[in-house]
């Protein structure tokens, strides 16, 4: 543990490659994400997109056949988490600290819902994220979200460099 493995900061290309390896697993490998049928769409540094295919099982009100707000909430939470994860320098796992969601309109029955999240600021352990959910037209969103995520305690495990020394030397 004493050896000073000063891992050089990975290049943007390296980070992106790693993100694209991890992100699909993070989205579809999460039990709740799997249960809801989340579909990984894309990931970028500090951004992520996930789709929720329309499913009659997740209708919130039989009278309207609109997908439950809760399913959209879970989708936005997951997408914000993806953006948070990809924003931290070390790709650690994250947990929601605060989530605010505004529902602008009912989603169209039958349409998939797409959530796009962007992290606009990340400190060492905290990420601030904004996201929207839409059913085809990003300019006519179904819902918007604002979230704060933190790295989880076990999160100092760096997925980017699994063998990284945890003692960050001050040169």
């Amino acid at each position, binding site marked *: 543990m004493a050896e000073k493995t000063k891992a050089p900061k990975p290049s943007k290309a390296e980070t992106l490659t790693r993100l694209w390896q991890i992100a699909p697993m993070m989205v579809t490998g999460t039990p709740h994400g799997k*249960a809801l049928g989340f579909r990984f769409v894309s990931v970028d540094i500090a951004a992520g997109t996930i789709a929720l295919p329309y499913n009659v099982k997740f209708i919130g*009100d039989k009278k*309207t056949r609109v997908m*439950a707000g809760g399913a959209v909430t879970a989708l936005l939470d997951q997408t914000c988490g993806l953006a948070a994860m990809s924003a931290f320098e070390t790709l650690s796992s994250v947990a*929601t600290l605060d989530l605010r969601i505004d*529902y602008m309109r009912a989603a169209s029955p039958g349409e998939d819902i797409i959530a796009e999240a962007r992290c606009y600021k990340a400190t060492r352990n905290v990420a601030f994220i904004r996201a929207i959910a839409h059913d085809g037209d990003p300019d006519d969103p179904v819902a918007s979200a604002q979230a704060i995520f933190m790295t989880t305690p076990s999160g100092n495990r760096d997925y980017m460099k699994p063998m990284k020394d945890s003692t960050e030397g001050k040169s």
Partner: protein
Amino acid sequence: MSKPVNPPITMEAVKTRLAQMPYAEVLGVEPMLKDGELTLRLPYHDDLIGNPVLPAMHGGAVSAFMEITAILQLALTGDSARLPRTVGINIDFLRRGHPKDCFARACIVRQGRRVANMRVSAWQDDIEKPITALHGNFMISQDD
């Protein structure tokens, strides 16, 4: 407060309303009624996990559960066939959700004609130690 007192909540009414929400059935939400006070139970199952390593419940799953609790509580105080709709909610994650049953109770802070302000608390072992708290506004659907 000169508002008319709402009729007591019956288990039958709760079940009718819950049957209207397929998503609540998928989550496995179960109602519990005591002294006219409604508590919802979210029985643990593996599909609710968000982080299998910790493990921790999915924030979205608990949020959805609290949203259902709020909508159900509000629906039981009105007679609209359509369920209330969420306008805006704020969720604070206070503690990690462990892989075990979760409970939630909602209260109507203020009910207007069109909008109701609600608070929901969700807990696992100890009601005094909530794992998440929700507050937000819900639109009361008008039948038209």
